[in-house]
């Protein structure tokens, strides 16, 4: 259960539909695939998104180290803590909070570089996923280049846990039903999503 907002990193680049944040490798708060995050854009506006990729680029030093014969642990630790290239976390925008009101519309303009990225609390996850009728699924389903099935499975698993905490076990069933409705006419996608959800297993 996470109850306090945790700062993850700062924004590197952004667009209306998604953004990328950089963070340190050693950060204990490194988010996982499918995590719901938010970025305050301005005073009364925040963007919400889901982590769909965590990416680490190499630099010259890493390449050298990777081929050396023996690597003392302190060298490894030093390289990780002080590397030039941050870990890149890619996020798909799925909604916003404007003047305190959550919705699954996109924010009017994207966050800008070095804005701070937070991981949402369980309460925020519950609030966001029960606003409206799961409309944010449309952003995910439209992003064909993403591993949609895996992303949904990861997100639903985390959200399911959050709702379970507050005693709402039906949320997962409703979300699954909504996905089936949305994907009824797209057999391959629906089956891959449902296969992924089935792999979650019962709680």
């Amino acid at each position, binding site marked *: 259960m996470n109850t306090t907002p945790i700062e993850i990193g700062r924004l590197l680049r952004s667009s209306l539909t998604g953004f990328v944040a950089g963070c340190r490798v050693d950060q204990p708060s490194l988010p996982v695939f499918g995590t719901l995050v938010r970025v305050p854009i301005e005073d009364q506006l925040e963007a919400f998104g889901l982590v769909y990729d965590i990416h680490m680029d190499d630099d010259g030093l890493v390449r050298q180290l990777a081929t050396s014969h023996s690597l003392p642990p302190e060298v490894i630790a030093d390289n990780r803590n002080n590397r030039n290239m941050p870990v890149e976390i890619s996020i798909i925008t799925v909604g916003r909070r404007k003047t305190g009101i959550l919705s699954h519309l996109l924010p009017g303009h994207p966050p800008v570089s070095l804005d701070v990225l937070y991981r949402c609390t369980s309460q925020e996850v519950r609030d966001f996923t029960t606003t409206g009728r799961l409309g944010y699924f449309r952003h995910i389903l439209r992003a064909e280049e993403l591993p949609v099935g895996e992303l949904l499975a990861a997100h639903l698993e985390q959200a399911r846990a959050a709702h379970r905490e507050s005693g709402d076990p039906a949320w997962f*069933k409703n979300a699954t*039903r909504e996905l*089936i409705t949305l994907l*009824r*006419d797209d057999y391959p996608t629906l089956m891959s999503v*449902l296969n992924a959800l*089935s792999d979650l*297993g*019962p709680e």
Partner: protein
Amino acid sequence: MNASIRDKNKPIGYIIGGSLKESLRARLIVPPQEVREGSFVVIRTSDWQFYGLITDLQLGATDPRFADEPSGERLQSAISDLLQGQTLFTTLEVLPTLMLERGPDPGSPEYAQWREKRGAISSKTIPVKTIPSHYAEVLPANEGDVAEIFGSETSSGYFRIGNTREQGHPVCIDLVKLIQRSSGIFGATGTGKSFLTRIILSGLIKEKLASLLIFDMHNEYGLDDTATDTQESVPGLKGKFPAAVRIVGLGRGASVRGQAPDFNLEFAQSDIQPQDIELLTHELNLKDTTPATLDALVSSFGIENWYSKFKAMKPGSVIQGEDGKRMPAPDSVETWALENNVNSLAATSLHNKMTRLFHLPYIVEQPAANGLNEIIKALQNGQHIVLSFGDHENDLDYLLVTNLLTRRIREKWVEMTNAHRSHIERTAEPRQLVVVLEEAHKLLNHEMARQTTFSTIAREMRKYGVTLLVIDQRPSQIYSEVMSQLGSRICGWLGDDDDIHAVLSGLAGRDALRGMLARLQPKEEVILLGWGIPMPLVIQSRRYDNQFWGELLGKTHGKVNETQIMKELGFQS
């Protein structure tokens, strides 16, 4: 009981498409096994209520792959259930039949306005002229809906003949409408026609709506009978309505099931007319020359005497002439033929073939009593006649007697009606009469219908207060023009396509009804059809048993089974 019915009366689906010409389509929201073909449903929109019949159920899938590839093995069962619930479905086909304006919610302010605009006219169903909108709820008809359409037993003239199949709501027919035009009861052998006829006849007698003339070819209706399959005793009408029902035997001294009838019927030879003989062309295998010979007989002897004179002639009888030659005797058929320019061979052949008639014991020179008049008098007085054929159970008797009798009755009724209408005398209108015919195709087939009185009755006697109730196994054999006159049709299972076609001829929604007819239970299930019925409906026939009589006559009739009584008192044997 009401609570459980109301519980059951949850929506079973909602409208998703269709048209007035074809049928409406509804998405089913309960398992398909909970509804059946032929069920009576109500479709609710805000202002109108539509009534219809389920005519088909179809399984569907949003994508055929969802149906083709069972997901149960690949997916978690809860997810698989959800998937099936969303992608696999059942579509109902509903044949809309009637609609009723409900108006706004009685509690709302618009309701008063609506009532005022509509005047005091009470709610009335009309045939469908439009369709419900998308997503209109489909519900199984409840007891009130059935009563709204088919009437309720408590109103006079409405008589319960069965129950809806699924929920057992009572279904009534409007007896007045039933007898206002001719009607038919059809079904293959053993489907329960005779039993249902007994029920309907009892209703008509009880309600005193008409006099009945029952041609009881198989001696089923008058006296108690034994069911051929269960060997149980089946009460006849006489036993239940001793004063109102008169049993008539055919011929002097005739007995019916070993009992003496109320009176006997004999015909005078002078009653027989050439047309009665022509009617038997097929039965007696008569030749084309018959009408000419009959004409000549009538012109020789007159319409009253031709039969007895002809009967008295001796075909082939000869005498010795003065010259010693043998010549036809004066009383021979040949002599008459010669003198009247009739082909002698034709005349003798006709005489030969008519021998069967000449031997009939119920055609006599002088009837002992005027049975015919008694029948007419009884019918006029509101009594009912069951004409039992007794031992005379073959087609010849049936054709001849029904026709002779009905012709006379028809003449009488026409005469009385005309007298009443023209106010010549202060005569009363003749009593409504229903002629009940078993094995009707024998008299109403394509060949015969033009010659018998029955097709005339079916066509035009409504105006004179005479209608038919025909009972038959083979409706396709009945002349189509007669068939088209049948206002109400009650039909049990039929196996033959032609028969099904005949029963449905001239009705709307034939295609949808055909399947329902073919899939009726083989017994005690009938479909109600036609002008006299508000809308087609499959019902379970009322049972003809002690309980029926108890309900009809208001007390327990017949012997009550002793163990039954003990059981009811709480003693289990």
